[in-house]
């Protein structure tokens, strides 16, 4: 599967080397409030969580994602805003919000794992 290859700037995480990661498929170039974005080498993992975060934005009237074909490793994200923000900015905000959420989940999880008297530690558990 050639599409699963790593690069340095993705922290060693696999994706096609030198390939296009992101494209804009606009229906109307003069109207930046609605656009479809194509993200390569992503699936429901990012698609659905990102769609949720973008829909949490009050300026967004519609957001949906699809995988146009199961053999093509890409997702389409359609965003329609109320005009106070461009679709690209809404996508950018969604990514920022998702990162902030993950960061908080990560910090909370680490703090809870560190508090070792608050949970059961079974035989053989390893901590780093």
């Amino acid at each position, binding site marked *: 599967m050639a599409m699963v290859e790593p690069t340095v700037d993705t922290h060693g995480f696999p994706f096609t080397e030198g390939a296009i990661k992101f494209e804009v498929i606009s229906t109307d170039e003069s109207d930046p409030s609605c656009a479809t974005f194509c993200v390569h080498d992503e699936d429901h993992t990012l698609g659905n969580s990102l769609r949720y975060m973008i829909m949490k934005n009050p300026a967004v009237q519609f957001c949906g994602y699809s995988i146009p074909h199961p053999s093509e490793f890409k997702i389409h994200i359609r965003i329609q805003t109320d005009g106070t923000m461009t679709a690209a900015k809404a996508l*950018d905000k969604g990514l920022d919000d998702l990162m902030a959420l993950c960061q908080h989940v990560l910090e909370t999880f680490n703090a809870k794992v560190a508090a070792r008297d608050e949970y059961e530690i079974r035989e053989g558990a390893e901590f780093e």
Partner: protein
Amino acid sequence: MTAVHDQDAVNLMRTRVVLHKDRVAHPSSMDFPHTFPNEDLSWDLTKFKENFRIVIGFIGKNDMEFDMIGVDAAIANAFRRILIGEVPTMAIEKVYIMNNTSIMHDEILAQRLGLIPIKADPRLFDFRRGADDPPTDLNTVVLKLKIQCSKNPNAPPMAALPSDKFINSSVLSSHLQWDPQGEQAEKFKNDPIRPVIDDILITKLRPGQEIDMELHCQKGIGKEHAKWSPVATASYRLLPDIQILEPITGDSAYKFQKCFPKGVVEVEQNDSGEPEAKVVNPRKDTVSREVLRHAEFEKKVRLTRVRDHFIFSIESTGILPPQVLFVEAAQILINKCKVVKAALHSSGAYFL
């Protein structure tokens, strides 16, 4: 009066997934702006931080359970999917066969070897970037498997078991020998690279048969092949919440209790001295919906699950501890966002 009831119905719909006899009612999320009047449901990190909780149940050698409360299914599912398919590990990818006279065909043997979990910290290795990238000590672990079966000269005359009659009649994962390359011997001296489990049966041999091969482990992810998945399973379920709408007393209290797994419902004496069913530990319920098959309970109980309370369970294959896997998964989701964000900014669409 009706307004109050409507509000209750809306709250129920928003906070619970209700299970009916023949269907699950309104399972999808609805906490988006403009869904409910006079309510701001837009994303607010401060509000999220107030609501979000993690409660760890236990951490064991290879498994853990924890509750993640206050997130949407889309987010919880992203973590689960990444755990299964995108947290990298090291697994046998290339098998160079010098000799194989066992009854097992080369390709079957190679397939079986690939699935053996190899205890090598994947965070200390690089991905091999395609076939042109030469294997080095930073991206490849070499294991050797050289084994011959022979008759056991000291076998008792009446021996019937192959393990008594022959030497090396079974090829086990413990027969894999690590061959350190470059700086690996120094780097991994405290935690030598080995199979996680020693007694995995790879194939069987009989006197005169031998296997001689070199195995190259590479870093990869479960999405490409399940052998790289770091978990046996990673799953979540929503916390069950059983609501008793009308008191269930007398003999039917015992019948009600029997509809649930042990420990979910207890029968206690109520104030008027009658036995009455009480829900004591809904977490143990499997939500089999058995209770809804009995007409007498249909109006008296409501089976629900808490919409944003995920009971996560991670079972590691033993390569990395389960709590480390979750941290890796969260980091991978952040990195995915970073990559898309960078690509969006360099695409030009952002500056329209």
